């Protein structure tokens, strides 16, 4: 059992307080929804969790330890897949930077092998998002932070993406924090829902 724990986190931009005394914890067999108004600090929280913001007070730990250098077991998936891929790399390199899943898994995610020789600009948003999810689901990943990952996709693609992601996460005991402004989606896929205003002061 892995436990992700956030204790007494504070973060400000200058004098503007974003997160105040935030406390949160989840386990690796859970899918938890995080809901909050726009501008309430959801994305900032995601960046704190995954180490993209480092200048905060408080601690983020897995099983009591602060993740050290190397591969981060808490992986962020972002709203815009095209912004997190090197536009000059082919898709094979984009994926291999993290790991190369076996054929079964590639099929399960509906990834066609011919895409490996394409550049990110030659794939659709839904196709790219499949790559970013699979890239984040490296065998060393323990938690996935999914920040509005299906907001920009049509409903058909949204249902497909969540089906693939959650199946694999459940199978490999990866905990998923689903951040979304769409409460109906959270109701559909999460074990429970947390309001950002309830875990901060």
């Amino acid at each position, binding site marked *: 059992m892995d436990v992700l724990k956030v204790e007494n986190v504070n973060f400000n931009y200058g004098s503007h307080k974003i997160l105040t005394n935030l406390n949160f914890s989840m386990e690796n067999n859970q899918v938890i929804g995080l809901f909050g108004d726009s501008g309430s600090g959801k994305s900032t929280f995601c960046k704190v969790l995954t180490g993209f913001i480092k200048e905060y007070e408080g601690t983020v730990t897995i099983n009591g330890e602060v993740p050290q250098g190397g591969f981060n077991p808490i992986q962020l998936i972002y709203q815009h897949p095209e912004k997190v891929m090197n536009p000059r790399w082919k898709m094979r390199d984009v994926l291999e930077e993290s790991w190369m899943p076996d054929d079964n898994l590639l099929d399960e995610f*509906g990834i066609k092998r011919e895409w490996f020789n394409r550049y990110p600009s030659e794939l*659709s948003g839904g196709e790219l998002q499949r790559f970013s999810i699979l890239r984040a689901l490296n065998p060393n990943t323990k938690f996935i932070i999914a920040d509005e990952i299906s*907001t*920009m*996709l*049509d409903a*058909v*693609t949204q*249902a497909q993406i969540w089906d693939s992601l959650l199946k694999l996460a459940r199978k490999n005991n990866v905990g998923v924090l689903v951040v979304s402004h769409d409460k109906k989606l959270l*109701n559909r896929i999460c074990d429970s829902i947390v309001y950002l205003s309830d875990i901060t002061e």
Partner: protein
Amino acid sequence: MSKLLEIEKLSISFSQYFKGLEQRELKVLSDLTMDVDDHEILAVLGSSGSGKSLLAHAILGILPSNAKVSGSIRYKGKEMDDELKEELRGNKISFIPQSVNNLNPLMKVKEQAIGYIKDEKDKEKIIKKQREIFNQYNLSEEVDEMYPFQLSGGMARKVLISTALLNDPEIIIADEPTPGLDEEAVKETINNLVELKEKGIGMILITHDINTAIETSDRIAILYLGYVIEITDTKNFSGEGEKLLHPYTRSLYRALPETYFELTEGHQPSYQNIPKGCPYHENCSRQIRECHYELPELREVNGTIIRCFNPLGEGD
């Protein structure tokens, strides 16, 4: 009687540099036909990055110069050339842009709402009107003197809407008016749009948010890879989706978290790889021979306009 705005067989493409000097042709809108009347909201629904905004730009005549455009756009039966587009935009045809980024960051809100007016008397008149409209939207006099960065998302949205109303438009083109707003602000924006329609305005609402489309519009045009595949009454987006005739539209409705969250196989390719024949045939459970070779024309079936050789029936 001619409709307020009619679009016929509109196609927009770009040629773009790809690797080095290699060029490729990117079709973003293909063979688009639709119309809108007064007292009506037509929602144009397509996934993001699908070039929906270019439709707005084409109507307003503000496409970039490297865009290749064909087809026709008519305002009250009159063909819109560049001159007419320039005359109408900002007057009879208003635009509600996507975000506060469309405001000039260095200009106070009031200044950019009224624009440049030479004649002092005209200016006074329009300032008075601007104040009236801003009051209607609960924008206080303080807001007049603010710069865009001082506005919250909801306020910025109201500023964009009230600015669009200053010249008593007949047609409004609204581009993604709701994303990034919280629930409350979305509700308010939706109410505002419906109010405008009730006053007689004809509106094209461009959005990727199916809920906004369902809650505001009278008809919905669904885009798939730049093609209109179905234009249907909004009330058909209800129940089990049995009145939606195109296989993609029905899957879309049934995939919503609030309906069935139903899984459909196959995914939407990118714009560089639009299949020959029907753009949806690779993922379609009802494909027949023709679908592979021929692009279906738009046609009417039971009051719905549809681009499909083998549409679903109500019993399917």
